[in-house]
């Protein structure tokens, strides 16, 4: 009987040994452990988001300048009256400095998301439309493509930030309907005017996004002496 028990024990070991232990503990590279797995720390996320927004704003400035040069070289002089071209969003976004000072983090994040999601489609349309121009500078084309890609990436980042800071799920924007249908016009001037207005207004909103993110970063990381505004 002893032999059999010994053999059984050996067999049990033999059977058990090839099996691999799955599910080893996850090594978190950062300190943050949110829920079941790690996540990138908020400081890093905010830094990356601010860098994104700054770059997007700078590229949008350059795009506007390139567009201006293109118009001038083609003899078109579009006097865009300021103020009534950039359509207000359905959800109000804080604009003035005093409003921004009173705004909460939650509102900042929501405004950011609204802005980012609003501009993804128009930028894609403009990029497609610019391809049809006769002598659009290639720098302008690359930049508009770059902007739409990076804006989508920034939108992802804002979503992640909302999840981390506010703990919400992915935010669904209520009330943001498709206000702008596909704009098809055979009139070249109208098309050009529309494209220019997209770039012009996006530049303003990119600056807003950059400002919001900087403010958010300042508030989250340097809580005590945030004298940005």
């Amino acid at each position, binding site marked *: 009987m002893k032999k059999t028990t010994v053999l059984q024990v050996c067999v049990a070991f033999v059977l058990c040994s090839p099996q691999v232990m799955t599910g080893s503990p996850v090594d978190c*590279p950062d300190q943050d452990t949110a829920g079941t797995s790690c*996540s990138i720390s908020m400081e890093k996320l905010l830094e990356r988001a601010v860098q994104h927004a700054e770059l997007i704003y700078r590229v949008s400035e350059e795009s506007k300048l390139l567009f201006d040069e293109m118009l001038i070289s083609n003899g078109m002089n579009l006097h865009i009256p300021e103020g009534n071209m950039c359509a207000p969003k359905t959800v109000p976004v804080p604009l003035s400095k005093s409003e921004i000072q009173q705004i909460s983090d939650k509102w900042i994040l929501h405004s950011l998301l609204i802005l980012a999601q609003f501009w993804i489609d128009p930028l894609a349309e403009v990029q497609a439309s610019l391809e049809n121009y006769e002598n659009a500078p290639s720098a302008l084309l690359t930049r508009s493509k770059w902007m739409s890609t990076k804006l989508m990436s920034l939108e992802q980042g804002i979503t992640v930030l909302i999840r981390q800071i506010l703990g919400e799920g992915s935010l669904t924007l209520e009330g943001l309907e498709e206000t702008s249908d596909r704009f098809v016009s055979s009139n070249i001037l109208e098309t050009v005017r529309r494209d220019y207005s997209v770039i012009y207004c996006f530049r303003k909103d990119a600056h807003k996004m950059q400002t919001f993110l900087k403010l958010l970063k300042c508030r989250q990381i340097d809580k005590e002496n945030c004298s940005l505004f």
Partner: protein
Amino acid sequence: MWRDAEQALTLIWLLSWTAHGVCHSPPGRPRLTRCRSPEKETFTCWWEPGSTGGLPTSYQLYYRKESSLEVFECPDYHKAGNNSCYFDKQHTSIWILYNITVVASNALGKAYSESVEVDVMDIVQPHPPENVNLTFMQTTNSPYFLVQWQPPHDADTRSGWVTIKYEVRLKIENSGDEEDSSWESYSAGKQLEFSIYSPQPGACYIVQVRCKLDHGLWSEWSPSSFIQIPDNMLDTQNAVMIIAITLTVIIFLLTAGALTVKMKPVKHFLLPPVPEPKISGLNTQLLKSGKSEEIFSALITPGYPQIVQSSDRQVEYLVVSDYDEEMDFEGKAHLEYQKGENHPTDNTQKGSQNSIKISLNSSQDLNTTLSENVHSGAVSNQLSVLGEPQQLLHLKCKGSPVKAQDRNTQMSSGSNCEHVSINPAGLTEYVEVDEDQKPLVREDYSMVSDVISDNILVLQDSIPVQGHKEVKCDKTSEAEETGGVFEPLGYLETLTTFSSES
């Protein structure tokens, strides 16, 4: 019977276990070796398979996004080669952590690797720079060679998405040397070229470049580039040096030869002999001979001391000074009253001149002073004021107009007179000692600062006189001024001889 069955079973199990290597078994555990992102927009992960277990094994890579439980499979297994997974732009996000696992599976089972968390920004390592290009430039006297390169083609450096930094390293290729020379590294910043100055002529250099994005990892070194430095660089430099050295040596030899041949004249030329002090009239030979009379007679030169002979060169000296108030320099002026031909006056007054020196107190009036002391009759008397450049002084003295002028100026003819303004200044003192002159100078010879000529001593006193004194007079006339720089030398105590003149 049970025993037999058990033994058989155990034997079978043991056999299957021992025959692990030969027969088929589930695969061994794979291992993720590394993940890299070359441009912060995509990334690739590689793994190392474990044992295959003898059966054809396939590998899958699964990943989860951060906290969600949904599992995705690798989008591209082939782009980056064997045992790799390539995540393109759509699947790469810098906002989340990836939880990656590799599964090896064969007919007998599966094996799971350890899970790895990946943050895309932390695994950034670019490709090495491309098209490293070496050119040797021989310009003027500073030869150098230029290293040029291109950024890796997939890095987006122009938009500012990444900031790139380069590093160059080089070493001399030693063929056959025991010691291999070590690499020298240079940081090249963001530029796309780098110059290496003063390369060793005749050497063969090996150059490599690498780059880094933001704060990521350094890339691999680019493939080596070689450059051979030509040898003839030396000639131009050396020729000049050789010529210069030979010339120097020749000149040196010549001078040495000249010196040895002509010692004395050269020596005199280079170091002229210092003249010994010599007293005129004194013959050292006479001294040796010891005849004292002859010696001393030789010493006495005729005409010494000089006696004033010619009358038209007579200068009257007038001392007007208040010794009680000597130290009060406020408003004192010295006027040298001089008569004579056109004669440039200067610091050194000859004994043949008579000059009237008038020193005034602030309280005194020039007129009165003059009237007291001056004999008139001197026409075209010249008053020169010593010291600072003076304006023209016009004095009326007993009807004889006197024009005072700057010491360095020419004499001017007298004219009817005038408004006087005096700028007294602290001036040189000088004392003219004359024969029948009773010396008014103090016994204190420590005040002597200079000896101008045979009979002039310059006394020095402390405070220069500054001030302006106006003496009323009748008319004004133009002042002739000449520029003359006078250094205030101190209060001038004048001694004059007053010799009346017919």
